[in-house]
Structures are given as structure tokens and as C-alpha cells.
């Protein structure tokens, strides 16, 4: 199964890739929502893990576009907050269609479990 990881922070993106590879998935990486959408068009992912605050195209817009074009796609939103904190962004992400949300920093095992649950039981 293929996971698309979208985050503008290099270290966080690498970590997400490592966690997902460790959990046994194929991983694609993108630095922002726009690049993520392009990669998904070329090679559709089964699940998308996206950050919310990013340049070019932010996470909320990405979630909206993905869910509109691919209603069955599973999405996990993660955020470390920004001007108003993650608690303001993550509920909005859920309203727009994110299946699960995580606040940075998160437990990698919990994230891996969430991915497994969404892909295999969701």
C-alpha cells in the first residue's frame, strides 16, 4: 500500500517516511499541497498524511481538493500549530474530511496504528 506524506519541514517529512516504511508501506513525499496533488495524480496513494501550515498550498485546501476528487481516500492531518495553535486548525481539518488528526509532536506508534486501522479496517 502507498502512503503520500506532505510536509514542508524536511526533518518531519523524513521521520514520517521512516515511520511508514518501518510499518511496511511504500512512501511518496511532497513538500507542499500542490506538489502532493501532482504526485497523487501520477501515482494514487491509499492514504495521505498532510501537515496543515505549508507554503504554496496549505493543508486545509489540500484536504478539500483531495476529498472532492477522491472521496474514498483516507487522510490524516497533523499540525504543530501556527499563529493560533493546532487546536484551531485540526477540528477544521476534521470538518473538511480528515479521518484522523494528530498534534505535533506525536507518538510514532500511535500514528502507525492509526494508519493501519484506516487502511485495513476503515
Amino acid at each position, binding site marked *: 500500500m502507498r502512503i503520500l506524506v506532505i510536509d514542508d519541514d524536511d526533518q518531519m517529512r523524513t521521520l514520517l517516511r521512516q515511520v511508514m516504511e518501518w*510499518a511496511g508501506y511504500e512512501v511518496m513525499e511532497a513538500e507542499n499541497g500542490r506538489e502532493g496533488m501532482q504526485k497523487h495524480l501520477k501515482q494514487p496513494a491509499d492514504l495521505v498524511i498532510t501537515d496543515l501550515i505549508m507554503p504554496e498550498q496549505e493543508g486545509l485546501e489540500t484536504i478539500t481538493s483531495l476529498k472532492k476528487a477522491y472521496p474514498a481516500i483516507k487522510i490524516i492531518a497533523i499540525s504543530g500549530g501556527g499563529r493560533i495553535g493546532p487546536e484551531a486548525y485540526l477540528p477544521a481539518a476534521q470538518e473538511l474530511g480528515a479521518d484522523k488528526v494528530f498534534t505535533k509532536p506525536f507518538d510514532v506508534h500511535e500514528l502507525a496504528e492509526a494508519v493501519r486501522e484506516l487502511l485495513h479496517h476503515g
Partner: protein
Amino acid sequence: MNALTLWIVCSVLALYTIFSVAYYLFRLRPRLQVHSEGCETLQKALDEWQCIFDVIVDPVLVLDSESRVTRGNRAAVQLLSSDGSSLEGKACHSLFAGTDTPCPFCFISSACAENKPHCQEITHDYLGRTLMVNCFPLQEEEKIVGFVVTAKDISHQRNLEKQLMHAHKMESIATLAGGIAHDFNNILGAILGNTDLLLYRIPVQNKDGSSPLFGPPLTTAELIEHLHAIKQAGNRAKDLVSQILAFSRQSSHKRQDLSIAPLVKETCRLLRSTLPTTIDIKVSISDRIDMIHADPGQIQQIVMQLCTNAAQSLENQCGTIEISLRQTETGKAEQHRYHGLKPGFYVVLTIKDTGKGISQETLERIFDPFFTTREVGEGSGMGLAVLHGIITTHEGVIDVSSTLGKGTVFTIFFPRIAETKEVEQQNDILPGGDETILFVDDEEEIVKMRTRMLAHLGYRVLAADTPERALQYFEKEDEQIDLMITDHTMPRMTGIQLADRVSRLLRPGLPIILCSGYSEAVTMEEAKRCGVHRFLAKPVDMQLLARAVREILPKKRGVEDENLGD
């Protein structure tokens, strides 16, 4: 002559005398009256002059050609004479600076040489005041015979300005807070995430015999990759903390030789997290940017303030902010174009937005204090005035140009200092040794970690988690200690106090390294006085510590450099 005749003669003589005197008095009266009136007028004028001289609220001194006081008004006496005694005959420098020789920055000689008034802001530590001093030469027959010096006390004004700048900086910190939290959460995410991965995957964790939760077991290459990621994240956090501290430090305002490019890049990264993502931030930095002499915190303040203003000018928070850094040599054309710009080499910071622009009327007042186009409560209107002040103290020039409906460009010129030195290439080899090091820190985890690190470099390490335990090592006469490394903030005794005690009473001359997280809490002078040889700001990098230890310890034969095996 009988008695009667004698009386008549005497009477006539007396009367003659009286009338003569009266006559002369009568004749002279108008002349005496004129003289007396003149004296009175003169006296009155003198009294009036003295009165006016004394009611001038600023100190005024009249000096002779050798800078000695010939007159001083009441305000001058109040400022310069603690016991109210006369200032006359005293030398100017003895009154203002308490010295026997003229002040190094004295401009009386300039006023004398150029024969024109001079004005200068002087902070006199002796008086504890900042004065705006004017000096006017006094001439007689084309020769300077003295000076009139006025000194306006602007200490209060300068203090208020400092407070205002600090308050303004705190406003910027509040703006930054969201960005900082976002960055820290990413950093913490990387540290905790990589640590979790290691803990889940290292076989030794599964003592119950169970296999790792997912995937294959950890390889050495993966282990190193995770450790590097943790270290990298730690370094990011360290840099972020030092930047926040540099930005928020109240009174340092210390200018230093500064590589402005990395600082601008880092500030833009913070801005990226702070501003709405609908705003496109473009950063363009020339390959070669030389150093400037500047206060890093204030440079960040300039970038933050101008970019925040730019963001607010964008309609619906959509548009572009371009931040660019280049260097240039300016000539007469630029001098004409940018008011106050002298020909020379400059590093140029430009902040350009695609916002609604600023009208010509507003542009003319944009740097005025308290001038704002925002609603009440939306800002003090001091932002650009404060920035203008900062840039001026950096001998820089700020210019603004704008087109309504198209956007605004702020251009700032900072004088470039000598060409940037090449960054010293540091290799990964860590120098080691076999001396004995006493390591003191009240945090047990730090003691454990440092002991392991130093032991790895070949040193014999004595560990102490309290200052008292450290002192016990010195009580053993046969205990050889070559160096003490101590934390500063510890219960019951600070690192400085410990160093003072060791260097004065127990082991005079022992090399001591002090580590502290708050550099402002300890001054280098104070630390040196207490026997500290070297100061290291926490968190201390392994490379830095290894090099500092080797630099401070006397060179020994046979000490080989060791590699922190990877």
C-alpha cells in the same frame, strides 16, 4: 576784635561755606543723578541677567579659553556641584567626568579650531546622565576668549526610548510566538519521533522475548541515521533559542560583526510559520554577502516589522512579499536618490510587497513617531519610527517608495565592514587527553552524559552533582585535578562562587570552565575575577567542549587526537 565781630565773621564764613556747598551740590546734582541712575540701571540689568541666567532650566556654563568655568547658572551648580559650592575656576572635565585630563570625546577643541558652534550627545558615566551638549565659541577681536556650554539632560528621554524599543520588541515577540511554537513542535516531533522509533526497534527493548512491533530489526546504518536526526533537531532548537534570546534581550543592544544572510534566512523561516500560507514569501540572497556591524536582535526586528506591515497591506491576505539581500557600491547617483547615503560599500536589504501601496501624503510622515493609518488600538504607530532610529544608529539609511494599488518597497542600506573571513573549516576529529577533569552539575543526567563523553575522549573524570561534593575532591591532598568544568546555576552555591573558592583557597591557578544557560546572568569580568578561564554558553556542543578543554589544558606529550568513533 570783640566777641560780637568775631561771631559775625564766623557766621558769614559758615553761611558762605554752606551756600557754596549747596550751590555746588545744586550745580552737580543733575550730573550725580545721571551717574547714579546709570549705576542703578547697570545693576538692574546685571540682576536681571543673573535672574534670567539662573532661571534657565538647562545647565549653562561660561568657560575661559582654557575650559575653566567663569560662570555657571543655578542648574549647572545643581548638576555639577554636590554640595552647592561655586563652580568658578574648576575645569570642565573635572566637573563632567571627574578626571584631571580633558575627555577623549571633548569637542571644545573642534569648536575652537573651526570657530563655530558644536553639538554632541554625551553619556557621562561619572554623572550617570546623558546630555545633549552645545558649545558656542566667544570671540573678542577675532580671537576666541572662551565658550558658552549648554547641557540639556536627555537621560529620561533616552530611557523612555529604550523602554519603548523594548516594548516594541515584545510586541514582535508576541507576533513571533505562533511561529516559534510551530517550529518547536516540529523539532520536538523529530526528536521524540526518532527516539520512539529507536525504542520500538532496538531488540534490547523487548526483554519479554516479543519481536518489534512492526518491520525488520534496526540496522547500524539506521541507528546512526536516527541519532543524526535527533542531533540535528537538537541543534535547530539550540539555534532557535539563541535567536529568541538575542531578539528579546532587553539592554544588550550590542553590535557585533555579523553575517546577516543566515540571520535573514532564519527570520524568514519564522515568518513563514507566522504569516498566513496564502502569502507567498520569496527570499533572494546573493551568493556573496559580506559582514555588517550590527545587533542581531535589531536586524531581526527590522525584518519582522517590515514583513508584518507588508502582510497587513495585502488585500485578503493574498499576495507576495519578497525579501532580498545584495551588496553594492554606491556613488553620487545613489547619494542623490537616497537621502543621507554616503558613497561606499553597503549590504542592501529590500522588502517588497504587492499590497495596496501607500499614498504620497502618508509616505511623507511614515517615519514620524505615533503616526499611524490604523484604527485606535491596532498599533502604537511607533513601529517605523523605532526602526528608523535603529537603522540610524547602525549608520544605515532606510528608503521607502510606493505605488498605490501596486505595492511598497523598503530599501535599507547597512555599511559593509571588511570582507567576510572564510569560515574556518572544522573537521570531525575531537581532541582528547589523559588528564583528570572534575565535572560539576546539579543535573544528574547531564553529569552522566558529560562523564561518558569526556571519558570517551580519554580523560579521567571525577563527577560531582553538588558543589559540596566537588569541594570534597579538593580536600583529598593526593587527588590530582587538572581542570574543573562547572555549571553556574546550582543550589546553595553558584558556579562562580565555587570557582572563586577553589581558585582563592584550594587550588590557585587551576583552569576552570564555566557553563551557563543564561549568559546575561554572568559577566565575563565577574567570572574572570573569580578564577574562571573560559565561559561556554549552554547547551554545549561536544566539539566545542572537547576543543575548549584541550585549549585550556597545558599541552602534553603523547596526547593523541581521538576520533569520536563513527
